[in-house]
C-alpha cells in the first residue's frame, strides 16, 4: 500500500488525571492505519490501548503529538473541517449496555446520527434505518423497543449500526466482544469482518483476546505501559513474536491444544528481583526475563530481521525463536 495512510498518529501522548494522580496513559505512540485495513491494538489492562482509541476518537484530549486523518492535522484544522472529518471516524464501545442511551428507543438512537447530519426527510431516514438494520441482520420490530429489552448481542449490533449510519471511513471498536458470551462473540466478530470487507472500512480493533485478533486482523500492534512495543502483520507478530511481552501474552493464552501450564516461565517471572525506577529505562524491564544491563536505556521501535513491516521495541528483538504452538 503506497497510498498515504488514512490515519496517522505521530508521537501521540495522553496524560490522565485520576484521583489526584497524573498518569502517562499513552507515551509517544506512532501508528499508521491504511484504508480498508484491520489493525488490532492488543494489550492488557493499563496498557493504554483504550485511552489511545479514545484519543483517536477525540473523546480524550491529546497532551502532545499529532493525529492526522487524510493527512490533515485534526488539532489545527478549522472547527467546521474538523467536525466533518471526525464524523468519518466512529466508535463501537465495549459495553453494549452502557453505549445505548437507556431512555431512548432504538429507532431514535439510530435516527440521531442521520438527524445530526441533516440526512433528509422522514421517509429518507426511515429507509436508511431499515438499510442499517439489514446490514447488521436485525429485524425492524426492534425499533420501538428500549435497550434494556434487547440481548447483549442485539445491543452490540445496534451500536454497530449506529456507528455505520454516517458512513465512516474508520471504525474504532474498543473491546467490542468482551462483554458478550462466547457464542455471541463469534457471531459479532463475523459481522465485523463481513461489514469491514463489504464497505471497505478501516477497522481499529482494540482487544486483549489474541484468538479474536488472529481471526480478524491484518496487522497487530502490542501495547504495554502506554507504549507500542511491537507491531507488524498478524502472522509475523503472533507466530514470530520478537518482544518478550508479546511472547508472554501468547504463552498466557489458555489453549485447548497446548494443555500445558508453563510453570517454569511463571517461576522465572516470579523470581525477578524488583528494580528501582529509572527514567529512560525500558518500561517492561521489571517483569522481563530477558532483561540485561543494556535495558537501562530503552530501545526504539526497530525492524526485526528482513521484514520492514515488523517492528519491536527491544534490544533482543532479533534473537527470539518462533512460538511452538501451531
Amino acid at each position: 500500500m503506497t497510498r498515504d495512510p488514512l490515519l496517522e498518529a505521530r508521537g501521540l501522548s495522553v496524560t490522565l488525571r485520576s484521583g489526584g494522580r497524573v498518569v502517562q496513559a499513552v507515551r509517544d505512540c506512532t501508528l499508521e492505519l491504511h484504508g480498508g485495513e484491520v489493525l488490532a491494538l492488543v494489550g492488557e489492562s493499563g496498557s493504554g490501548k483504550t485511552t489511545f482509541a479514545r484519543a483517536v476518537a477525540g473523546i480524550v484530549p491529546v497532551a502532545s503529538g499529532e493525529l492526522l486523518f487524510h493527512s490533515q492535522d485534526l488539532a489545527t484544522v478549522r472547527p467546521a473541517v474538523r467536525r466533518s472529518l471526525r464524523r468519518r471516524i466512529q466508535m463501537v464501545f465495549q459495553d453494549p449496555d452502557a453505549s445505548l442511551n437507556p431512555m431512548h428507543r432504538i429507532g431514535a438512537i439510530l435516527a440521531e446520527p442521520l438527524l445530526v447530519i441533516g440526512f433528509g426527510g422522514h421517509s429518507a431516514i426511515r429507509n436508511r434505518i431499515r438499510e442499517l438494520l439489514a446490514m447488521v441482520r436485525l429485524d425492524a420490530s426492534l425499533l420501538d423497543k428500549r435497550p434494556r429489552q434487547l440481548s447483549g448481542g442485539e445491543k452490540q449490533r445496534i451500536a454497530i449500526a449506529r456507528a455505520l449510519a454516517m458512513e465512516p471511513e474508520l471504525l474504532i471498536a474498543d473491546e467490542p466482544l468482551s462483554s458478550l458470551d462466547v457464542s455471541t462473540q463469534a457471531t459479532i466478530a463475523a459481522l465485523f469482518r463481513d461489514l469491514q470487507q463489504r464497505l471497505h472500512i478501516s477497522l481499529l480493533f482494540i482487544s486483549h483476546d489474541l484468538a479474536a485478533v488472529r481471526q480478524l486482523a491484518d496487522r497487530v500492534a502490542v501495547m504495554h505501559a502506554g507504549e507500542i512495543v511491537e507491531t507488524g502483520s498478524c502472522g509475523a507478530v503472533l507466530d514470530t513474536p520478537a518482544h518478550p511481552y508479546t511472547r508472554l501474552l501468547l504463552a498466557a493464552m489458555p489453549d485447548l491444544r497446548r494443555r500445558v501450564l508453563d510453570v517454569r516461565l511463571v517461576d522465572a517471572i516470579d523470581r525477578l528481583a524488583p528494580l528501582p525506577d529509572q527514567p529512560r529505562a525500558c518500561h517492561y524491564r521489571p517483569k522481563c526475563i530477558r532483561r540485561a544491563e543494556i535495558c537501562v536505556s530503552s530501545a526504539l521501535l526497530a525492524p526485526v530481521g528482513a521484514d520492514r513491516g515488523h517492528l519491536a521495541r527491544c534490544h533482543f528483538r532479533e534473537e527470539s525463536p518462533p512460538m511452538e504452538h501451531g
Partner: protein
Amino acid sequence: MTLGMNVTSPTVPGGPVLEVDGLSVRAGSGHLATMPVQDVSFTIAAGEVLGIVGESGSGKSMTAYAIGSLLPEGVAVSAGRIILEGRPVHSLSPAERRALDGNRIGMVFQDPLSSFNPVRTIGSILIESAMRHQRLSAAAARDKVIEALAGVRLPRPELLVDAYPHQLSGGQRQRAMIALALLNGPSLVVADEPTTALDATVQLQILALLKRSAGARALLLITHDLAVASTVCDRILVMQRGRCVEQGPAAGILDAPAHSYTRELLAAARWPAVFGNQAHAGAA
C-alpha cells in the same frame, strides 16, 4: 471415562479427601423452589486437581458453596452427602462447621475486592484467622502471615501485611486470598473462578501458583473456561443445568467427549474460524 458415576469409597485415611455423593441443593420452597444442583457425585483424592466446568446457571458455584457451607439464605442441601476427610459435613450446624472449616477447607473466590473487607488491612484478616485456628499469639501469627504472603510470591510481604485491599492490584489481591486459603493448612482448596477477573498474564501466574500450592492437597477448581481447566486439572466434571453430564480424566474428556453438551462447550471454546463458521450467523 464415565458419565455421572456414583462413587462410594471407604472413609479411612488414605481414602479421598472429599467425597460428594448424590448431592442435591434446593433453593426456595414450595412450588417456587428450584434445584440448582441435582444428584452430583464425585471424589477428590489428595494431590489431585478436579475441575468443574459449566456455563452460568450450571450449578457449579452452588456445588462449591455447598461444600464450603456458604449457601445463601433460603438455599440448602436437600439430598446426598458431603464427606470431608471421612467426616460428614453436610449435616453440621453452622457453628460446628465454623469450628471445622478454618483447618480443613480454604476458599478462593473470584473477586478479591469484594471478598476482602475494604476497611481492614490484608494482614489483619490473615492474622485473625491464624490466631483463631492455630491458636497463636499475635506476634507469632504475624510472622506466620508474612511467611504465607512470601509463599505466594508477593513482594515485600512485611510491608504488604499493613496494606489495604485497594492498594493492591487484582493479581496481588488474588495471591493474598490464596495465602489466606492456605494459611491454616487445609486439606482441600476450593477455587471458584479464581482468574476470571484477571488479565491473561496474571491469570497464568495465579493458575501456576494454585497448581504449585495444591501440592499434596486436594484442589477443586470451578471455571466456565474449558481451556483454563485443561491446563490445570487432572480430572474434569462437566455440569449442565444442575446435573453432571460427564466426568473423567482431563485428557479423555477433551480428546473424546462422550456427551453432546461437552462437545458443544469444546466447539465454543475453540474460537470457530470467523470465515468458516457461518452457522451461527444472525442468531445472536
